[in-house]
């Protein structure tokens, strides 16, 4: 188990380093540079001044030197300065990270709830029509563009009915509503996979045994099937971390919420290299962290995993 853990952590660190390096290369390949972008947009600045500023920030150094010094800074815990705001990258991200975390965590919670409700209704409803209708929700959810849904919700409930604020004002509604909107596309793949794996589990012999012992359909479903079929859905849940971050870019713009998504958008637009690098690192760390966590939860859901991992095999069902 310890060896399994160490290998997984080492893999995770390698993924983070790779993500960082690939981002650095991609940013280097862009024809423009952050200084030109920063200075040229709104003032008329001479080439001399641009050259001077590039040397202040080290952007006139060869790429490999920039890479090395950035990486060294990073290992020392210094993410560098955002050239746009003058804050340290850690400060700029730290200022807003809590907002995105709250939004994403709540959205994830809602997404899981949506998925469980969909799976439950699809399996337990006495009305075949309702069950079929609910089964069709996940494809619809993944087809609805998040920005459109957000705009419609705001136009109807904020502009027309004035029930919710357009800006984050600390109220419960100003957090819950964007989270619900973000949860819609996130819930789709979870629900879809969950539906399929419940369908598979319902056909397994143990369900027939439990039913034969006299258990009701709903008891069997709630007590046994929902849990044992959760594995694949959990894997998908881990993969949605990326969608959550991507979705937060849209949601934070539409709902005027400060957050990591908005900072990312701004940093990409202004080619603020240190900030983009910092955010990629954060995203990569979150992504591998959550997936690592899920790998560790797996054995709790399904004891077969431990048995397999003890034999040195990589333990995943899906």
């Amino acid at each position, binding site marked *: 188990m310890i060896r399994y853990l160490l290998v997984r952590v080492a893999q995770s660190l390698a993924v983070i380093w790779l993500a960082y390096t690939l981002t650095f290369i991609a940013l280097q390949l862009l024809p423009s540079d952050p200084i030109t972008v920063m200075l040229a947009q709104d*003032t*008329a600045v001479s080439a001399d001044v641009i050259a*001077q500023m590039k040397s202040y920030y080290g952007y006139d150094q060869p790429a490999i030197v920039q890479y090395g010094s950035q990486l060294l800074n990073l290992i020392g815990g210094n993410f560098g300065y955002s050239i746009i705001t003058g804050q340290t990258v850690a400060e700029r991200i730290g200022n807003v990270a809590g907002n995105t975390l709250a939004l994403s965590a709540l959205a994830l919670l809602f997404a899981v709830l949506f998925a469980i409700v969909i799976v439950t209704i699809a399996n337990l409803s006495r009305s075949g*029509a309702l069950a079929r209708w609910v089964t069709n929700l996940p494809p619809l959810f993944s087809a609805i563009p998040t920005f459109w849904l957000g705009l419609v919700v705001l136009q109807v409930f904020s502009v027309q009915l004035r029930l919710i604020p357009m800006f984050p004002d600390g109220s419960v509604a100003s957090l819950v509503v964007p989270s619900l909107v973000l949860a819609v596309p996130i819930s789709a793949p979870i629900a879809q996979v969950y539906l399929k794996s419940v369908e598979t589990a319902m056909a397994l012999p143990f369900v027939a045994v439990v039913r034969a012992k006299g258990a009701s359909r709903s008891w069997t479903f709630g007590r046994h099937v929902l849990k044992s079929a959760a594995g694949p859905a959990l894997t998908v849940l881990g993969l949605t971390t990326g969608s959550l971050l991507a979705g937060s870019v849209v949601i934070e*713009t539409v709902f005027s919420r400060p957050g990591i998504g908005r900072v990312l958008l701004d940093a990409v637009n202004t080619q603020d290299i240190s900030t983009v690098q910092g955010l990629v690192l954060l995203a990569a760390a979150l992504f591998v962290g959550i997936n690592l966590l899920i790998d560790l939860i797996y054995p709790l859901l399904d004891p077969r995993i431990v048995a397999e991992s003890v034999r040195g095999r990589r333990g995943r069902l899906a």
Partner: protein
Amino acid sequence: MKYRKAGALIAGSLAIGLLAACSSGPAGSQVSAAPAGDPVSGGTLVFGDVQPVTNAQTQGAGNYSVANLLGSVLDRLTYLDPDTQTLVPWIASSFEQNDTATEFTFTIRDGVTFSDGTALDAAAVAANLDLLGLGSAEKKIIANPNFVGYDRAEVVDDSTVKVYFGTPNSNFLFATAGATAGLVSPGTLALDLDGQSDISQIVGSGPFVFDSQVPEQEITLVKRDDYAWPNEDSENQGAAYLDSVVIKVLAEVSLRAGAVTSGQVDVSRGIQPTDEQTLADAGFQVIATRTTDLTANFAAFRLTNPATEDVRVRQALQIGFDRDELVDTVLSDSYTPAASILPHGARGFTDLSDELAYDPDRAAALLDEAGWTLNADGLREKDGVPLEVALAASNQSVVFKPAFDFIAQQWRELGVVLENRAGDTTFMNAALVDDTTAFVGTRLFVYGGLGPIFSSDANVWTRASIESLNDQFAAENASVDAAEQDELRAAQQQQIVLDDAIALVLWDETQVQGASPSVNIEFSGGDAPLFQSAWVAE
């Protein structure tokens, strides 16, 4: 069965969307005017801006959102009257220049203090001018491009500053009125760029003082009770009427009108042309600024691009679309077709609208002459290369994209293909240093004249300079005679727009605001909201 239900759901969602698109309010009512009567003191005004302020250093104010904020926190030496295009006293109670535009003397108004209590005296002004004029390597702060030729400032006595230039710069006095020439306290000046970028560390002498912020979301300013030195143009010669101003970021363009109609902001900048009527019908104010301190919106022709390096191509495209129809079709009554690179009403503006009239026949003849001939598909080509040009523009203007979709149609009739990448910021960033993009769209402050925009060989707009035009800029800077300056400015415009056609001029810059009927607010010639004289009726 299931498809029908899903279909019904989609239809229902779409219906909600359409419903949402048609905002409520009594149809057909008139555009409401600002409230009449005497100004009311007190209250808070909520202003919706389109992006957060990420760099509050004085020179960051080349960006509208920064200028809107700093305009009420910092004062400047002079103020440019948008109607008369003359400078009026502000922190400088008087100002003069010598006959060669190399020496300038400012008399500083008595009794002005920064909000931290330090005096805004001659020494503070000189320190500000030195940082603006020379920049500072160790503070990572660049020199203000409008201060070209700056040598030094000397404190003559407590209320007199004398400024010396190495080369003539008769635009310098106007540059001191520029949004990017705000005066900060000596304490703020001592900070480097990173410190001065942070609005919470900016100490000015303006009518409002920074109070608090939610990073990247909103900034609250509070009134300074002892403010008594507004510029001479201001209708309010004392402290602000408003107790506080909250500037909120409203990035999503389609929500800006709704934010006003639902009372969640008092004023919203960046209203789309399609929302203007909705707002007016619902009894809200639609305020279009009359901009005199910026160029008209233009797309700079890249002089180093293979398609646009030929002046005949540039001249053909300049007269190859109908500006009046563009404004009627895509924009609104708030917009005026450009008649030059400078907007109507700007200092030295010369009206070239006759020469800019839509003339597809002459445009076609010019393209033929340049060797770009029509092929069987009705497209122009030369040596087998099609005449295809790309446009880059940032997402700062809400109307560039639809405007160029319209222009592309009319150019297509000439056989020219346009790739419209307006609003694609990443493309814009790449285009700044890349000649393969034929046009870059923008509009820029002209406090320092047109020279700072086009005179550098490496300027990101045209990517090359023209020697004879640079001579004109130098002559303008060396002249201290207003009539002669106007003549030189007229000649520059003639050259930039027609003879060398290095800027495709579009429409005069304007910012369109939606505002509650209870708000009384005016804007500077640089489009900044004047919060000091603004008030909200009870």
